[in-house]
């Protein structure tokens, strides 16, 4: 193996690729811009959406209650709901988002309460629709309050203490660190994005260095030089690998900086429950994640090279690589699903394993055994992909496919 020749090929490919606008875009601009956009952008959008939904006075329909003037009057006095005239198609109106919720007061509600009966109040909502849930929530709060007041009156009438119906209280207390809480919330998503960016960063150089060479007619030029095909493909591989790793590194740096910026921006603002955005991701976690991504970057680079080498031109390479993006995105998405936890069999599935272990790392949990298993298995897959790429580079039917 002549490292000198590999170095010559690598340096040329690096110079050449850095002058390619598409490669620079996918390697530098996308990871730098995407991370802040995804974190801050998504955060701002969701806060705005939530805020707007919370500020809105939900339109509510009251069904029945004509014989219960007391509860009806209290409902009509509520300032945080807007009562609209009753119509029989309330369910359809909720589904069509014309009104947010409806409440059905059973016949003789006021009298039933006075007589100690247990009437049922029904609240109709569009489950999963934020504004409808907020509307239903306000109705729920009103009736819960009314129930508490009725209980208090009944206890007072019988001269009984309030603690009769509340013998003890229940409190939930979070024991996970702020890093773990924020990691579990955002950690699932971010490693997946970094993995996808690692692939996309390597995609353009891989196509340019293989199918692009065929299309531009330089493949015959380079094959007429004395450099061996093994050295040539290894030199090209190192360039693609550099792009993959550099993109992942930039994405991580961008992620770290986004959280650092978030920390200073949110300094002094009250925390939302135990979720501390500013706890963010530690440098240690980013470093560990980077180490775990290295064999995956080798796998991506070699696979991309091998597939795009098979293509006759750039366009064909793009059509071959598009399904690969989906194949990589699938395990990355699966890793985010609730209940998908890292275990020994999943540690052997490429991409999914790195995505899952990165999720754990970001939340501050280091499963050293699994990390070793994932690193070794990823190295194994990467070696196979590299071997295939080298073999394909020796095949005339692939190099001169017409």
């Amino acid at each position, binding site marked *: 193996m002549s490292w000198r020749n590999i170095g*010559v090929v690598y340096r040329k490919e690096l*110079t050449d690729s850095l002058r390619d606008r598409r490669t620079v875009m996918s390697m530098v601009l996308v990871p730098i811009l995407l991370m802040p956009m995804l974190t801050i952008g998504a955060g701002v959008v969701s806060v705005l959406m939530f805020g707007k939904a919370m500020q809105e006075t939900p339109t509510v329909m009251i069904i029945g209650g004509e014989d219960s003037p007391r509860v009806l009057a209290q409902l009509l006095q509520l300032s945080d709901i807007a009562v609209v005239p009753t119509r029989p198609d309330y369910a359809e109106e909720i589904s069509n988002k014309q009104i947010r919720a409806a409440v059905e007061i059973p016949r003789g509600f006021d009298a039933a309460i006075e007589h100690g009966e247990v009437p049922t109040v029904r609240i109709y909502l569009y489950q999963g629709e934020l504004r409808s849930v907020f509307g239903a929530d306000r109705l729920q709060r009103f009736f819960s309050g009314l129930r508490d007041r009725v209980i208090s009156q009944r206890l007072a009438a019988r001269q009984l203490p309030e603690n009769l119906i509340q013998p003890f209280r229940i409190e939930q207390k979070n024991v996970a660190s702020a890093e773990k809480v924020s990691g579990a919330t955002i950690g699932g998503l971010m490693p997946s994005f970094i993995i996808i960016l690692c692939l996309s960063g390597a995609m353009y150089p891989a196509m340019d260095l293989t199918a692009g060479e065929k299309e531009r007619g330089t493949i015959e030029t380079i094959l007429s030089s*004395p450099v*061996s095909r093994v050295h040539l493909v290894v030199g090209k591989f190192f360039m693609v690998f550099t792009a993959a790793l550099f993109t992942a590194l930039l994405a991580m740096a961008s992620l770290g900086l986004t959280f650092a910026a978030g920390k200073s921006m949110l300094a002094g603002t009250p925390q939302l429950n135990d979720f501390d955005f500013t706890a963010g991701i530690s440098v240690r976690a980013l470093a560990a994640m980077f180490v775990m991504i290295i064999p995956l970057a080798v796998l991506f680079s070699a696979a991309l090279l091998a597939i795009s080498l098979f293509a006759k031109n750039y366009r064909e390479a793009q059509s071959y690589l598009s399904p690969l993006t989906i194949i990589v995105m699938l395990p990355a998405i699966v890793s985010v699903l609730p209940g998908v936890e890292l275990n020994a069999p999943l540690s052997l599935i490429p991409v999914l394993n790195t995505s899952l272990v990165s999720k754990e790392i970001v939340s501050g949990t280091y499963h050293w055994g699994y990390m070793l298993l994932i690193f070794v298995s990823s190295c194994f897959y990467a070696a196979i992909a590299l071997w295939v790429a080298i073999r394909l580079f020796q095949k005339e039917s692939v190099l001169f496919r017409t």
Partner: protein
Amino acid sequence: MIEADKLSKQFRDSHRGTIRAVNAVSFRCQPGRVYGLLGANGAGKTTTLRTLATILKPSEGTARVAGYDILRDPEKVRANIGFLSTATALYGRLSAKEMVEYFGHLFGMDGETLRRRVETLFARLEVDFPDRRCDSLSTGMKQKVSIARTLVHDPPVMIFDEPTSGLDVMSARTIVGFIRECREQGKTVLFSTHVMSEAEKLCDTIGIIHGGCLKTEGTLAELRARSGLQDLEDIFVRTVAS
């Protein structure tokens, strides 16, 4: 020196089955002489030259180029040839100088030797645009850079595959002049063409190839004497038809 010995090359095609592009071709090119492979499109010229340049592996037979066997020492063969064809394009995003230097490095040249060699070549070929990117060059300029690329390591053997195909008159003249220069320097020159006038002007020996087989070879005078015809085109047509 190039010595082809029963060189054959087969391809497998999913539609047409096995194609015998080159069939037991044997010939010899001497240093200081130009050997022209004359043939129609699809006759097997490009495959023969690509096999000799070790870009393709022969299915049967072998050849020795500059003293090295194409099967045993393909890298040494490539280190001793300059290969130029219309398919050997330049890297568009590299400058003319970077392009030639890249190949110099691949041929094991470094530092001052390479720098001086590139300067000499550019001066001789009148490449006064060393820092311009190759994708911004005219066809003629690109040809000059390609010639510099093939000569950077001063190879004893030159292989040209239809080097003037698709070029304008001026660019084609540059190439023809360059081939003559190579002969004068004592290099072994093998080139393929389907242009009769070019073969007549340049070749010391002409080999007529058709259907992957070398039908006949000799100097122009020998071919004329053998066929009783004067015009190379007539000789070519009769040879191919026979």
